[in-house]
């Protein structure tokens, strides 16, 4: 199952690149090209890691860590 998902994601990314990148080059949107490549690369890597069952760092944990000082206040409000 993992292999199928990885293949699907790779096909999706390649097709998206083939369609989008020439358009951006034509319009000289180099900033867009950079952002597009970085985001798509990130998304593809995340999707592959997820389908290989690797633990991806959870942004919710990060937010919970940032707001851990006020956790006591929230617990008090919940009572």
């Amino acid at each position: 199952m993992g292999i199928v998902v990885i293949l699907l994601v790779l096909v999706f990314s390649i097709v998206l690149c083939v369609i989008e990148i020439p358009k951006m080059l034509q319009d000289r949107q180099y900033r867009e090209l950079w952002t597009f490549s970085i985001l798509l690369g990130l998304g593809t890597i995340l999707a592959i890691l997820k389908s290989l069952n690797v633990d991806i760092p959870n942004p919710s944990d990060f937010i919970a860590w940032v707001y851990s000082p006020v956790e006591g206040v929230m617990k008090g409000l919940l009572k």
Partner: protein
Amino acid sequence: MDKIKITNHQLFSLTANGAIGGSVIVIAAVVTSIAKQDAWIAALVTPAFGMLIIWIYWFLGSQYHGITFVGIIKNIFGKWIGLIVAACFVFLCVIISSHLPWYISNFMTTQTMPETPAYAINSLFVIAFVIAVLYGIETIARASELFIYFASILFFLAMILVLPNAKIENIQPVFEKGIIPILKSSVFLSCFLTFPLITLMMIYPINLTNISEAKKSIFKGYLWAGFIIFITIFMSILVLGSTITANSQYPTYLLAKEINVGIIFTRVEFLITAVWFVTQFMIGILFFYAGVIGLSELLGLKDHKRIVMPLGLITLVMSGVVFPDAIYQANWVNLVWPPYVITYGLILPVLLFLVFIIKKWIFKMDTRG
């Protein structure tokens, strides 16, 4: 940036859909667990405070025509501080847009389709987000105009059908524990009803033709949503009682399960689910749209449509990562989400408001002296 304009009625429906979406099916649980049978009073108190916050949103928007919330932040806080604050705001939008499909897939896998993998349901949702944002804000606004009629009619139909099961004893005694639990629970209600509307600020000043009429439509939309949430909580307590409401994950769905008119009209709980799906979809689009527009404005992109698909892929993958299980989600939503959204939905606009007032005051002194 695109200068597509939406009408004031579309703004009304976007506001109402956004405010209903995050809260209609889940919020009764946490509010009732704190305020017990008085939770319906909290639903009356919250919009009263909320109006003040919505007024601040409107005021900030009305002072700056033609720029988004990211632009307003940069304009008021200056280039560098503004950039950092705006980046944090965009991060919130992107992360929450991957939280929202999780609720749908969790609901579907626990209540109706236990064999289906969560990603199958998430992907349908995220693909719809991507298509909607690719079509642009006008399509989203028009869809929301249809959705608000659809959602309101189905919602009131469900509520009328469940009315025979109401027991007035369930809300007695009124004011048993005094006003404190009501105020506490209204903090939580605001976090789902009022503060997520900050994403609307990415649409409201820039994509609107008639700013002076906008105040009325934002307030109307917000009050309409507040009214629907009030009915939700009130009926949940009347029919289910405060204990069952507080202990279930999806109380409004449970409420609709109680519908039993004769023997013919049973099992119509998907009336409520349909309402929730379309409104949750709208708040999801609002967050995703705000994330896309905000990111492209931060990076100075001319065409935001280029980054929609890659960002959609990230959102889809993250929607299965952000909450490992329902217990983690319940903890996160109760302990982390309120301070997180209060930072951006309450503290940030108030800070912007104060800095704006101070700047304007100093500016006036300069011009006079």
